[in-house]
């Protein structure tokens, strides 16, 4: 597919890298020629410097022949203008980043007017992700499928865990859990495990489970299920704002520590229910004075990764049950994988996976991807498909199907009945199927998971 990306910042670059690796023809436009030079040298993309909203530049970038234009510059207005011009030139789909709250409420209205295929808001999406983490504090990550009927959760095997030293088939035979461990991350390597795989301390496992089974699993595994009642947020940016809104709505106490006075006043006027502290959240005394020991969860959202990391590590160290760290650069996260760092969230990846899901679904019109989540730092993907008439493996017992390497069928949703599949189960027409892949090539339709017979 031909894709033009306007604006090569964090999100633009991450998208260009991922999409060009998925074999699309990418043209990147940015008005900063240094950024463009960088993209040109490190990625297999074409680059152009100039104002991406200008007609002449878009014509030169051949937006008219492109299948998709993604506008991710720092300015909402510029992004929208890009999309209008692109649509007029005949670009099939347009995606715009719109982050201003003032525009958020009129998004649907604008979407129709501008012919936008999709709008993305990194801060909002990130806040939603954090909010979901806080709902299930026992898990490092949580993604849902099949309209919330199936959850994919990530948890770490601790020394005292029931699972430590157990092989996977014992999960159902001994513990009577109807769940499936689909990915194990050990020493920064990814395994798609078989039944005889033995778990050990330090493994991070990704488990798919029907929602009903999730509570049972939490109980069986003896994971603490304390509900989060108060949250301390360090850094009062846009993400904090969206997050505060969600938390307040569900009656959680919110404390936001923000350094900038003007911003603090603005936050205080907007969220009277929240406690806004105007102080430097990176200072130990401030954290102690505000009772970091007594909070249920700490979310670090300052603009500086190092600061976020240090505060979260410290919070984990003194025993805060749940910490969530925002990282702008996820590249270094492997440094912390075996330390006591709780959940992490990376806005550019949240957005990139949202857009990539969309790209894959328009790339192949019968592909019918419903959901796509990138898990274990983007090293694997969990994708939900609808099995349609073109699907080749219909009504064949799974044990007779040949799947490609590093692919696993994690769950089948048959008319709302959630099946954690075994050898005798089969995929029927109309089912939704969740697959987990750590394969090299991108999976854009259900048939891609089967080994080619020819």
């Amino acid at each position, binding site marked *: 597919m*031909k894709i033009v990306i306007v604006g090569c910042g964090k999100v633009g670059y991450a998208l260009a890298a991922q999409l*060009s*690796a998925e*074999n699309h*023809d*990418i*043209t990147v436009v940015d008005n900063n*020629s240094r950024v463009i030079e960088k993209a*040109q*040298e*490190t*990625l*297999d*993309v*074409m680059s152009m410097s100039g104002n991406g909203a200008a007609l002449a530049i878009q014509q030169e970038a051949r937006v008219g022949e492109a299948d998709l234009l993604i506008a991710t510059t720092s300015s909402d207005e510029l992004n929208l203008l890009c999309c209008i011009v692109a649509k007029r030139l005949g670009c099939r789909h347009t995606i715009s980043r719109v982050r201003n709250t003032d525009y958020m409420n009129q998004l649907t209205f604008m979407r129709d007017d501008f012919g936008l295929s999709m709008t993305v808001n990194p801060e909002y999406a990130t806040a939603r992700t954090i909010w979901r983490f806080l709902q299930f504090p026992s898990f490092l990550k949580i993604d849902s499928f099949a309209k919330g009927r199936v959850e994919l959760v990530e948890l770490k095997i601790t020394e005292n865990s029931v699972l430590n030293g157990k092989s996977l088939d014992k999960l159902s035979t001994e513990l009577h859990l109807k769940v499936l461990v689909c990915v194990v991350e050990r020493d920064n390597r990814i395994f798609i495990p078989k039944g005889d795989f033995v778990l050990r301390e330090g493994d991070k496992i990704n488990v798919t489970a029907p929602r009903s089974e999730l509570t049972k699993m939490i109980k069986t595994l003896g994971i603490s299920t304390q509900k989060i009642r108060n949250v301390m947020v360090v850094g009062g940016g846009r993400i904090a704002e969206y997050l505060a809104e969600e938390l307040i709505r569900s009656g959680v106490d919110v404390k936001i520590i923000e350094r900038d006075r003007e911003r603090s006043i603005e936050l205080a006027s907007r969220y009277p229910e929240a406690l806004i502290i105007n102080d430097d959240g990176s200072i130990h005394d401030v954290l102690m004075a505000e009772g970091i020991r007594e909070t249920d969860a700490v979310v670090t959202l300052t603009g500086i990764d190092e600061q976020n990391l240090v505060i979260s590590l410290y919070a984990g160290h003194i025993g805060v049950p749940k910490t969530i760290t925002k990282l702008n650069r996820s590249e270094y996260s492997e440094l912390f994988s075996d330390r006591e760092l709780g959940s992490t969230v990376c806005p550019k990846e949240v957005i990139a996976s949202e857009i990539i899901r969309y790209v894959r679904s328009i790339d192949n019109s019968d592909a019918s991807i419903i959901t796509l989540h990138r898990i274990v730092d983007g090293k694997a993907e969990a994708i939900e498909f609808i099995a349609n008439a073109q699907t080749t493996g219909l009504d064949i017992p799974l044990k007779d199907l040949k799947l490609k390497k590093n692919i696993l069928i994690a769950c089948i949703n048959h008319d709302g009945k959630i099946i954690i599949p075994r050898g005798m189960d089969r995929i029927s027409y109309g089912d939704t199927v969740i697959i987990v892949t750590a394969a090299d090539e991108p999976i854009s339709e259900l048939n891609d998971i089967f080994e080619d017979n020819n």
Partner: protein
Amino acid sequence: MNIKITLKYLGYLLAIEGAFMFPAMMIALFCGERTALTGFAVTAVILLAIGVPLSFLKEENPTLYAKDGFFIVALSWIVVSLFGAMPFTISGAIPSYVDAFFETVSGFTTTGASILTEIESLPKAILYWRSFTHWLGGMGVLVFILAIIPKSAGSGVSLHILRAESPGPVVGKLVPKMRSTARILYAIYIVLTLLELFFLLIGGMPLFDAVTVSFGTAGTGGFAITNNSIAAYDSYYLQGVITVFMLLFSVNFNIYYLLLSREFRAAYKDTELRVFLGIVCVSVLAIAVNIWHTGQALCETFFGALHHSAFQVATIVSTTGFATTDFNQWPAFSKMILLLLMFIGASAGSTGGGMKVSRVIILAKSILSEIKKLIHPNSIKLVRVSGKVVSPDVVHSVNGYFAVYIALIALSTLCLSIDNFNFETTFSAVVACFNNIGPGFDMVGAAGNYSAFSNFGKLVLCADMLLGRLEIFPILLLFSPSLWRRTK
């Protein structure tokens, strides 16, 4: 230097060079040339034995940085020439290995300078290989690899390789994917070569001659398989076809891509193309009048003068080096024009050598803006080409390139003067090799050759040819110790 990825690329390269020896082996088999067959068979086996295992190396870090690109390109060209010379020596066609190396470097760099005094008696397979090196070197060996290697190797981030191997001040991709760019370039190249072959065959040229001449023209090389080059095909039509194709191959290939994607306006507005055609027209007319007026051999009629002037201008400006007549006998004015054309050379992004028209344009314009700046000291003067501002970085690098270029020519002339030939021979030999043309003046003129130089002199000229083809910096960087430091 990323040792694994460098070796991997070298592996691909050697394997491909080995594979390309098969047609030559077939010819040797067909013509019953036993010595040539052994030469190619032995070399091909060695190449495949080294190359295939290396190409399966697993790189730890597939990212190519700028220095890796330069390093791989420079090393590849030297290694490919070292192995490419083996069939000449093993078959006994060129007994001295230094001579054979000179001939191969001259082939791959599309120079066309030869140390052979007697060409026609050589085995056909050897002649084929000699001309084929032109074709492969013209568009670039590594660009060919980029077009065919599986996607995983180097992860496609190979812009640095394209930049180091393709000529011109600014090298960019035609389409977003590197592999597609390389394929488009080679597709254009192959189609143009086949077209020339077709037109030559129509004109009644024997098949073998037509194939080798097409290779020589396409790469703008200049090896012929007859002792008196293209003069052997005494036909205005054949020589005319070659003239036209020499010029076609010295146009930036981006222009053909623009034409194919129906962007005629952009192609028409291209400053480099206009200047290039302007230079060619003016030179052809000036020389034609000059040689017609002074009544040179074969130029008694004005049409004859125009024909030979056009051929000679095309052969020099495209840096091919074919000959239809001995221009060494021409008057000084014509010879001076040809000497100037040697420096200018072909367009950027073509298969030709020389300084490149686009560099000359940028140089001229930056000099003009310097002069204007003297009159209005605070004025801002930007260099524009094809209506677009050339970034000061590029202007700067072009100025730097010119300075190094002149310095290296001076240095090489000094080294070559040890062989104690007259000034015209020494200087023009360096200029002709550095700019990948082939024939110079006097002893190394269209009717002469390079056999009289000492081994040292030949190696100096080899270095010049490589420096010229790869546009100096990749080869110079080989002498930088930091490039050899091992990285992962």
